[in-house]
């Protein structure tokens, strides 16, 4: 394995990790109708107070 291979491998692993991190980090912004205009929503779909 040459140095160029190692650099490519590190870059690809870095890119893949970054993409996965971004995908996991992104919160689920979906809200039930009940909570549509609230700041946040509880698990049982009731608006959390501000």
């Amino acid at each position, binding site marked *: 394995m040459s140095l160029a*291979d190692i650099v490519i491998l590190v870059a*690809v692993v870095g890119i893949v990790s970054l*993409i996965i991190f971004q995908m996991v980090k992104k919160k689920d912004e979906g809200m039930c*109708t009940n909570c*549509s*205009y609230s700041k946040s929503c509880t698990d049982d779909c009731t608006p959390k107070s*501000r």
Partner: protein
Amino acid sequence: MRVALVGNQNSGKTTLFNLLTGSNQKVGNWPGVTIERKVGMIRSTNVELIDLPGIYSLSPYSIEEEISRKFLFEEKIDLILNIIDSTSMERSLYLTTQLLELGIPVVIALNMSDIADKRGIKIDLKTLEERLDTTILSISAAKKTNVFNLIQTIKQGEYRKNNYHHIYDHDLEDGIRSLISIIDSKHPRFLAIKLIEQDPVFIKYQTDETLHTIQTLSKEYLRDMEQVIADERYRYIEYVRDEAVTAKKDQMTWTDRLDNIFLNRILAIPIFIVIMFTVYYLAAGPFGGATVDFVDRYVSLFSNWAEDALLSVGASPWSTSLVVDGMIAGVGAIMNFLPQLVILFLLISFLETTGYMARIAFFLDRIFQKVGLSGKSLIPFIIGSGCSVPAILSARTINDETEKKMTIMLTPFIPCSAKLPIITLFAGYFFKDNSGLASASLYFMAIAVILISAYVMKKVLFKGKTSTFILELPEYKLPSMKFILLDVWDKVVSFVKRAGSVILLASIAIWLLISFSWTFEYGVNPDQSILASLGNVFAWLFYPMIGEWSWGATVSAIQGLVAKEQVVASMAIIAGYSDTTSDGLLIFGSTAFSFFTAPAAYAFMVFNLFSAPCFGAIGAMRQELGTTKRMWGAVLFQTGIAWVLAVMVFNIGRLIEVVL
């Protein structure tokens, strides 16, 4: 300070919101664009602006009205910015009178004042302000007229605090007053009126004392009290209108003239077919096809340069292949179609903002009702031409549960932008000069399948009445190039992001699976790769629709679950590993996919068009359908329909080939 932006549908709320906050929320010239929560800060102020969905009243007749009412009643709001369409003020005032009853200060922005002027509608602002005891500003959000003054008015707090004017007759006002004295609420007048109307949501506030007052009132009027209040409200609105508005009568507007053509009983559907055909012909036909070749040339140049550069710095064949045959080939195959998507996005956005899309909903409503859908289902279908995820979420505005479920299940049938690369790739190669026709035919096939499926579903699964749909037809407008370009830009950015994230990941995964065998040996013949063995497990499912045992086509189609564009990216990677046997497009010149004939190509397109959408859209279906079981039902239903149709298309096509 928190300000709620409230107004009728299509009154220009979102345009004003964007202008005030400097954001770029979706604007459309059809009702119901505002679905998701939109909050922003008014520029250079610390005022939070909340854009509520378009509503006609604070009565719970639709989900939008329920959401807005709940928000205004329960949340702490300092000011309501009520946007009114100056050209239809009388209708807008129904909501305004209800907003005033909340006891929250209201500032009215009379929007589209320029259009009202052109039509000879004169509004006496001073009289209107006096009658409603509210600050009123005449603006044009589209032309940015007087918006600065509106911001200053809000920022400085220079608005009237609304001393409520009586709008009901004396008996009713007395009843309201006595209720106000016994109820405890932040919005006593609003609540008192809701209690008199016997609004079920507010029944919990009813006490023996309030009930007694209301029963006394009911005995006096001997009519439904909700009706009494509505009649009184309309009477007051007519009085205000007579005092403050003068309009020329019976003027034939441009909208009327255009509607005589676009909504003509005989011409409406042929015009719709011609318009949609033109859209797809321009985007996916020879014109759009030429742009693919153009970009492809540069992607190939970049790919060759990258290969030479990597080899020259001492990279091994495997690492070079990972970058060139995996990452660049996969992402590049998708990027080839970007110019075509830009054409499609531009045309769809143009149609949306002119007001034509609302006309489609209007004349399709009758057909939709016959099959158990309502015209409201058309809004998710239109949004679905961009992406199925927001389209499925937008179905939540449909009140009727049955229609909502049907719409959610059928929306992914609309060719979303991610499916366009598949359509263009196959149609461009196999149907050459008729590629536009082949692409457009899929769009009309999608509409036919939606109508037939809805009819069958209504007969078998969801029996019941179809709800009615009230649609306000907006004015035709010359679209703002700025909004169109911003809308297209948003979609392009989202497409490029997908190509650089999901598609890139999937392409790397496909490269790994095709480059290695189960014994982790690199550089094996693709037929001995992990990918081939996985594809062979499911290839029997695809054999009846393409007439060939192809693990390559199988794994590519299955990857449509990750993202529909990935079907093309995967085919490009697999083709790169096969021997190229002819010139022309790499994919169909390769041994892996050279078996494709025109019927097989069309059938493969049909399968990818109608089969289960990507994971993102499946997630949205799970959220909106409520249960995982229903989601699986929808996925199986969609894939089942896709398989049956593809097999039918392939066999009919083969039969035609034999006959010809």
